[in-house]
């Protein structure tokens, strides 16, 4: 089930603002199941949410409105509801994005963005970034290994000057790599526009469109039902 990024983006966006979260979660679970994703992978990805979970837990204590007492603590009802829906919504959003990321090749993602009529400059920057992301990340990693092998340990703010120096070096290396890439492209006849670099990924087939529309329609139906009942 390789839904192309473009379709998934369309799917992901409307399914985020919904009320009956459990049903939505089931829908996403079905999609994940169809895509044969491992649940553990999705769970690990959820870790990114942690800082905001902390914020959500603080909310009941900060919010205004009626207060109730839960386990000896005075909390705001509105804050409690808000925290709950917030958690549910952001979890759904993160899950949807994770499913997209797991089912979509990066090149397909770039092509999808291009089909969504992102300005061409942005698409080009995006394609270069996606392409060189791992190179830069591995360079970072090598620099970290080099620091460690010199006995460096990042424990407290005294290490900042060393780390900032690394940021500066990292910038120079990234920029100079950019210069080299550009020169190499010029040598191969680059004229200022990327011809076929991002047109490689295929478009969504009608069947896939059908699935996408079905998914969005399901989400929207759930939402409108919940508004109708409320």
């Amino acid at each position, binding site marked *: 089930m390789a839904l192309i990024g473009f379709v998934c983006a369309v799917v992901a966006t409307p399914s985020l603002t919904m009320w009956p979260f459990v049903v939505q979660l089931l829908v996403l679970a079905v999609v994940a199941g169809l895509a044969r994703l491992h649940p553990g992978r999705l769970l690990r990805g959820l870790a990114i949410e942690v800082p905001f979970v902390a914020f959500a837990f603080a909310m009941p204590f900060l919010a205004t409105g009626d207060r109730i007492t839960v386990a000896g603590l005075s909390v705001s009802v509105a804050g409690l509801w808000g925290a709950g829906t917030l958690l549910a919504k952001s979890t759904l959003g993160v899950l949807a*994005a994770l499913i997209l990321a797991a089912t979509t090749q990066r090149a397909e993602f770039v092509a999808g963005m291009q089909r969504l009529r992102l300005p061409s400059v942005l698409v080009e920057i995006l394609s270069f970034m996606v392409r060189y992301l791992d190179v830069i990340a591995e360079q970072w990693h090598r620099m970290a290994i080099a620091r460690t092998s010199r006995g460096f340990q990042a*424990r407290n703010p005294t*290490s900042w000057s060393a780390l*900032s120096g690394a*940021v500066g070096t990292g910038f120079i290396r990234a920029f100079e790599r950019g*210069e080299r890439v550009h020169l190499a492209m010029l040598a191969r006849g680059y004229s200022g526009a990327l011809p076929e670099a991002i047109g490689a990924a295929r478009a969504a087939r009608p069947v896939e469109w059908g699935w996408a529309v079905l998914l969005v329609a399901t989400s929207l139906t759930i939402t409108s039902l919940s508004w109708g009942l409320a």
Partner: protein
Amino acid sequence: MHVPDGFLNLPTSAATAAIAAVGVGLAVRGARRELNERAAPLAGLVAAFIFATQMLNFPVAAGTSGHLLGGALAAILVGPWTATLCLTVVLIVQGFLFADGGITALGTNITLMALVGVWVGWGVFRLATKVLPKKLASIPVAGAIGGLLSVPAAALTFAALFAVGGTVPVPAETVAIAMGSVHLVIGIGEALITAAAISAVLAVRPDLVYGARGLTVTKPLQIKEGVLA
């Protein structure tokens, strides 16, 4: 720092998305002046650099650590228009491929970090360079001030957005004070790192620092007699 889905209501998200679209549209035009046709590969590599920088954790104390946001740093190194584009792309990739920051909140995140973060950082930097003596040594200091103010500015913008379109009725002052004070502390870290990183680049390749243009001296190539003999 990245706002997830469901934090702000739909009208606010849509409004910030519109602001972000206009801002990025302007940046697309502006970046043409900053970079020639080298734009794509260079800006792409800079975007990858910012992304990687945000993965580098700076230890604070007792096991906690923070990372650089890089708005002011990017603006000073490559110019504000290009920096806006780079951060926008970083946020798109983070939102879609790494689930960091919600997709409906993408407009909000771009407004906060790629527009407010970059332009406040850049504006303050420009002001500071006007006040400070016109020397290369002033650039990191000005960068520090830019970095210091850009972070709480983005945080306070978020607090204002939350007051307008937050999904939970937390009093606006509480959010503003909490966000503002926490991010002022983060801003201090951002300031120190921005300054140190800029001076590191200035020491090696001063010609690469956009904010230092006009201060660098280009020496003519000299071929001295007798050296090769």
